[in-house]
C-alpha cells in the first residue's frame, strides 16, 4: 500500500527492524484460522444488527472476567476463546440458535473421517481458511 505509482517520492521505508514504520500489521493478528472466523462473525453480526456491539462487548467482558476469576493454574489467557464464548452467548441470547444445536453440529463435524475436512463439506468455507475458497494472502 505504500508503493503506489502516484505516491510522491519520499524516503525508502524499512519493512522490518527497529526503523520499520507501523505497517498494516505489526504482528500476526490471528494465531489460528478459526480466530479470524470468530472475529469476523462477531463484527458481521454487529453490523447486520443481530446484536449490538455493546451487547457483544458486555458478554466478552463477562467471559474474560470469568476466566480471570477462576482458571487452572498456569493456563495461559486465550483471548479468542473468550471471544468465541461471548459470540455463542450473544447468538443464543438473540434467539438465532440454541446452544444444543451448536453442540450437535460441532459433534457432527468432529466425526468426519480424517481428510474430509478440507472440502466437500457444505459450502467450501467449512474449515476456516483452509478450504481453498477463501482468499489467500497472496
Amino acid at each position, binding site marked *: 500500500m505504500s508503493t503506489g505509482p502516484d505516491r510522491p517520492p519520499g524516503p525508502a521505508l524499512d519493512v522490518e527492524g527497529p526503523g520499520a514504520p507501523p505497517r498494516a500489521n*505489526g504482528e500476526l493478528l490471528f494465531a489460528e484460522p478459526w480466530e479470524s472466523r470468530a472475529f469476523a462473525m462477531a463484527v458481521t453480526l454487529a453490523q447486520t444488527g443481530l446484536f449490538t456491539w455493546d451487547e457483544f462487548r458486555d458478554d466478552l467482558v463477562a467471559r474474560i472476567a470469568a476466566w480471570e476469576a477462576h482458571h487452572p493454574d498456569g493456563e495461559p489467557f486465550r483471548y479468542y476463546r473468550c471471544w468465541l464464548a461471548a459470540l455463542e452467548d450473544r447468538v443464543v441470547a438473540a434467539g438465532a440458535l440454541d446452544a444444543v444445536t451448536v453442540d450437535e453440529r460441532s459433534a457432527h463435524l468432529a466425526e468426519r473421517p480424517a481428510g474430509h475436512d478440507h472440502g466437500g463439506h457444505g459450502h467450501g468455507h467449512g474449515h476456516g481458511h483452509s478450504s481453498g475458497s477463501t482468499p489467500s494472502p497472496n
Partner: protein
Amino acid sequence: MTDAPSGRLSPALRTEALEQLLVERELVDPAVMDAFITTYERDVGPLNGARVVARAWTDPEYRAWLLQDGTAAIKDLGYGGPQGEHMVVLEQTEDVHHVVVCTLCSCYPWPVLGLPPSWYKDPAYRAGMVRTPRRTLREMGLEVPEGREIQVWDSSAEVRYLVLPRRPAGTEEWDAEALAALVTRDAMVGVAEVAAP
C-alpha cells in the same frame, strides 16, 4: 451449556459449526466475513494513525481540530468505521504522559491502529497499567521521568483513545510523509515515545 467452548470440542470445530449454522440461516455471509478479515489483515493498521499524528505535527490547525474533535479530524483523513465512532486524542506533554488501556476487555481504535496486539489484551497489562503504571511502563521499556504525571485512560464502551506523541527533536525539516514513518503503534497507545531519528 454455559461453558461450551471450553468443553471437549475444539474452538475450531465450534467456530466452524457456528458459521455453518448461521450461514444456513442466512444470518452471515461468508464473503462479508472474508472482506472484514482481509481489511484488517491488509489495509487497516497503525500506519493510519501514524498519518494522523504526522499531519498534526505539521499542521497546527489540524492539530487543534484533532484535539478538539478527534472523530471528525480523523474522519477527514478517511479513517472511520467500527470501533472508531468516538475518538478522543490525548496529547503528550512535558508535564503529562498519557497511556491507554482497556481494563475490562480490549477496546481499541481499530480504524487508526488496526486490531490490538496481544500484550494489550493480556491480563497482566490491563491490571498492571491501572495499579502500577510507572512500573508497568518501565517493564515495557519506557522510563517516564519522576516529575511527569502519568494519566491512564480506560477505554470504555463509548470512547476510544489515540495518543498524540511528542514530535522528536531533529525533525523540524521533515514533511508529514517522512514523519509518519517514525511513528510507532506503541507510541500511539502511550507505552513508548517516538524516538529521534
